[in-house]
């Protein structure tokens, strides 16, 4: 086959053997932030400078990294700030937000099994961020608006993170979370309740955090149970 044809074939081959299921749902999600800043990322046209994460690269848009449990959000903080003892943990002063996420076309890679079912490497969920970037680009090119994936930080069974690509704006709620149907533009707006201000991560979250460059116990167990070698 001529080189040009080979290139065309390679370009058309997705990373997956079958595409991840597209899901739509109203999720309750959580995010922890600095006490002086808003809950969500606004990239702006001028200077989108969110530090690279698992599902996006710095300078190429922004992503909203959310956990589907409050401990999951706190574990993200413990992992990033390398908080491994009570001396530092009790000096933390962060905000915890509860978010009502109304979304569709979210790629369901919420378990290591689902990665494998799509022909994808499950270690991408918990490994180095750069390894996941090609998948992130492909998912976005295929029109997915976000992705569900096993939490890399919160090392507990069934801990899942929800990542959304692109800007979102928070609509801060001071009472009960309203009915999701009242949000006139859920593709832009996310209802947000500030549930903790100036708070420290709970001990449980710290004790169940998988730290950078350390083993992810849930993934290790899955590998053992499935005879998988990354």
């Amino acid at each position: 086959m001529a080189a040009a044809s080979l290139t065309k074939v390679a370009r058309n081959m997705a990373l997956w053997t079958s595409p991840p299921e597209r899901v739509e749902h109203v999720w309750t999600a959580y995010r922890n932030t600095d006490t002086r800043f808003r809950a969500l990322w606004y990239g702006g046209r001028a200077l989108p400078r969110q530090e690279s994460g698992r599902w996006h690269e710095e300078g190429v848009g922004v992503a909203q990294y959310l956990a589907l449990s409050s401990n999951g959000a706190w574990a993200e903080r413990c992992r990033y700030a390398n908080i491994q003892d009570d001396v530092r943990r009790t000096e933390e002063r962060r905000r915890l937000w509860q978010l009502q996420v109304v979304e569709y076309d979210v790629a369901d890679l919420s378990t290591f099994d689902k990665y494998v079912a799509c022909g994808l490497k499950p270690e991408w969920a918990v490994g180095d961020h750069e390894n996941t970037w090609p998948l992130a680009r492909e998912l976005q090119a295929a029109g997915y608006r976000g992705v569900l994936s096993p939490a890399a930080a919160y090392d507990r069974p069934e801990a899942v993170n929800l990542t959304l690509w692109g800007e979102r704006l928070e609509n801060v709620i001071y009472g009960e979370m309203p009915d999701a149907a009242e949000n006139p533009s859920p593709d832009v707006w996310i209802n947000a309740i500030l549930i903790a201000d100036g708070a420290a991560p709970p001990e449980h979250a710290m004790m169940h955090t998988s730290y950078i460059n350390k083993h992810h116990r849930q993934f290790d167990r899955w590998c053992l149970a499935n005879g998988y070698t990354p």
Partner: protein
Amino acid sequence: MGGTAVLEAPRTIEELRSRTAELADDVDEQLDLAELAFSTGDGSGEFETRRDQRDAFSSQLRAGIRSLAASPVWRSHDLTTELLLLNESLRDEQAADEDATDPEWRVREVLQRMAIVLEAMGRQARYTDLDDPALAAHYIATALQDIEVSDVAALLGTTTRMVASYRSGEIKTVRKNKARITWLAHLVDELRGSVTPRGAVLWFDAHFPQLNGSTPRELLEEDPQRHGPRLLALARGGRGQLDQGGAQYGALDESA
């Protein structure tokens, strides 16, 4: 409908900061009104009243933005361009919102983006302050007021007597360790939104995998100018809102 009021461009840095903060407050107030109207189902009275209130606010906002954009300090800054573009978007959305009820929250969306840009502008002005070593030293010494003075001195690479002088503000010129002091000030400023003063000091001695196991203190002592941006990115991790980090990104030219 009257013409847009013209405000003089701010003449001093303090006036500039004050004008930025006022604009941010005005936008926040308008957002609060929109939120209240939505949550209570109160369409805020007759159409003429809503439209007049909206037009009065827009006129005031436009005058404020123009005065900022006319200031030598902000004139060529990317954030100013962002703000001007958003103001044009606001006009478009208001024109499309014929009964001034904003049912799809499009006007509100633009206002919130404006609020974010104005907040970033306020922060940028603060970052410019911290680039002055004397102000930076004073900032660090007062932000860590409750920390053992010997610990603060060790962080600054100076004596306990100098820390006392920094705290009093009597030092107008810093002669030694300027780079270390300014980077330290940016780092402390960044950390104060996430940790206590003691937590900030502990951060400097924590080993981070992102720093290949080094501590921030080790890297600051080795070469603050070289390691500063990386440390600032680490301290800022988890947030963003348009700031790139450090003085060399988007700094204000106060000599303009």
